[in-house]
């Protein structure tokens, strides 16, 4: 029986008078690939930040992997992020003075112990076995995003979050990254929640939810 890894009830997030996310009820079964679509300002990133433990909800309830995020302290949220979540950013956000290998090892350092052999394997898995010693500035956008993916999966997270991971990539690199995510998901069985405004990218998922003005307006099965 498949259990729900994410369960939200009336989840909201407000910034003063502005309600970025209106009460949201959402269930995500373990292993599902959920695409979140919507225009700019529709609340996609707000939802992703809440699910990743980067931000705190203003109301409602938020259960992730059986853990109530509403009750966690700052350090509790940090522990949750390093043990439970891997995040892929649109801007990659790699540390500029570290090599590709060291960027991956940095995630290991905060999780447990830096393991060079394991980090090498992760980079080889995303096709960057020959770019281990290159700094982010020496890598293309697609390569940087693959380093970002290797870093996100190195600690075997249960939940992989992607915030427009292909937003800065061309069509070819987008296809490569999505194919890679699909393969990794089938190998590691993690749940993916991917925010995008690109229908083609969203279709790689199992299910699509659409947000508009902070509210869930539509839900459908993906098209691929």
């Amino acid at each position, binding site marked *: 029986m498949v259990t729900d890894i994410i369960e939200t009830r009336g989840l909201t997030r407000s910034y003063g008078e502005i309600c970025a996310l209106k009460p949201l009820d959402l269930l995500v079964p373990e292993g599902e690939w959920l695409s979140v679509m919507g225009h700019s300002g529709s609340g996609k990133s707000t939802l992703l930040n809440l699910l990743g433990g*980067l931000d705190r909800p203003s109301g409602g309830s938020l259960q992730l992997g059986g853990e109530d995020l509403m009750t966690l302290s700052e350090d509790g949220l*940090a522990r*949750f*992020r390093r043990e439970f979540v891997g995040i892929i950013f649109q801007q990659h*956000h790699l540390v*500029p003075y570290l090599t590709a290998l*060291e960027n991956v090892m940095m995630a290991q*350092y905060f999780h447990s*112990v*830096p393991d060079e052999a394991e980090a090498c394997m992760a980079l080889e898995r995303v096709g960057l076995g020959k770019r281990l010693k290159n700094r982010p500035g020496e890598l293309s956008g697609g390569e940087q995003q693959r380093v970002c993916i290797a870093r996100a999966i190195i600690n075997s997270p249960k939940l992989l979050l992607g915030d427009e991971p292909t937003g800065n990539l061309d069509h070819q690199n987008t296809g490569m990254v999505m194919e890679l995510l699909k393969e990794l998901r089938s190998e590691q069985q993690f749940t993916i929640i991917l925010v995008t405004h690109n229908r083609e990218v969203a279709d790689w998922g199992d299910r699509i939810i659409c947000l508009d003005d902070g509210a869930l307006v539509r839900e459908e099965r993906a098209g691929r």
Partner: protein
Amino acid sequence: MHRWRWLIHIVLKSLAYRQGRTMLLLGVLAMAASLVTSLGIVSSAMGLRVAEEVRKYGANLVVLPAAARMEVGSGGLDFGTIAEPAYLSQEELLRVAGREGVTDCSLHLRGHLRSGGLEIPAEGVDFAVIRRLYPWWQLQGGWPDADEAVIGIDLAARLKLKAGDLIRASGTAGAGEFRVAGVVSTGGEEDKLLFIPLAKMQEALGVGSSVSQARLLAQTGGVTLEQRAARLQSLLSGSVVREVRQVARTSEGLLKKVQLLMALVTAVVLIAAASSVASTMSMTVLERGKEIGLLKAMGATRTGVLLLFCGEAVALGLIGGGVGYLLGSGIARFVMKTVFMVSAGIDLRFAGLSCAVSLCLALLGSAGPMMSVFRLDPVRSLRGE
């Protein structure tokens, strides 16, 4: 890889990446540490140098028997001081002096002897100590051997004596004949006295191994001369210990003023250095907002991020302290050679001080920026806000 090794690796890479800013911070820290080192070495060496110079002025403390003098007066009337013969124990003086860091001790026994029907003021001394403690004594003739004497220039004129003449002098308990080895001229009370060996004077007066006065050259390292005098007085029963003030006050006062000036200059430089470190670190934190947000998003606790920044501050502090020590030692050597005409040795105590000062500056200067690291919100940081 071990976590600590990884932390050091990351810290050094981060510092190497921001070469310009790292060099600026290192420069500020090294400058402050070198100032502390050089002023510390110069100040310490200056204390020793002044002590050496003071030594040339002879004794800095004088010990008198407490019963030897008594203030006489009543109802606001002051009749002055009356004195009666009183003595100090030679053995006790030498024992206490040896224990309490007294560099030299000159024992004196003053009294009156009769010579050719005249009463003459005389003093028993140890001529070897007198030669060391009173290098300004100008002697016509030479320094005496056993059974020889030195006569003050005024007394010599009064008695019509010169170097090589014999003088017979007697006290209440004994008498002796002395060849005048030299005639002394100091411009002081010594010009009116006859100096004979201490043992002969004790024999002539029949006072055993007693003395009427001791003049001491005491080390003042760490304490003032006044404190040293008080300490000696508490140990010497029935004695009064006084400073030879004109010399002691001038040297100690001057040294203290110079050291105070040095401390004030150092304090101003340290405050300026701390401000400079704080502003540079603040700019660094602002620039690295996204990086801090990323680390937090990866699961770093606030303490974990803080540890990285503390590591950078510690590395900068230690390197700055090391460079500052080398630089400061060089400056101190130059100053010592050109101003005091002496060469300063390597003093490793100041290596620790230099590193400690630099480390404190780096950590203090980073304290404010680090607090903002502590409070940074990962979402806003990643958005570059």
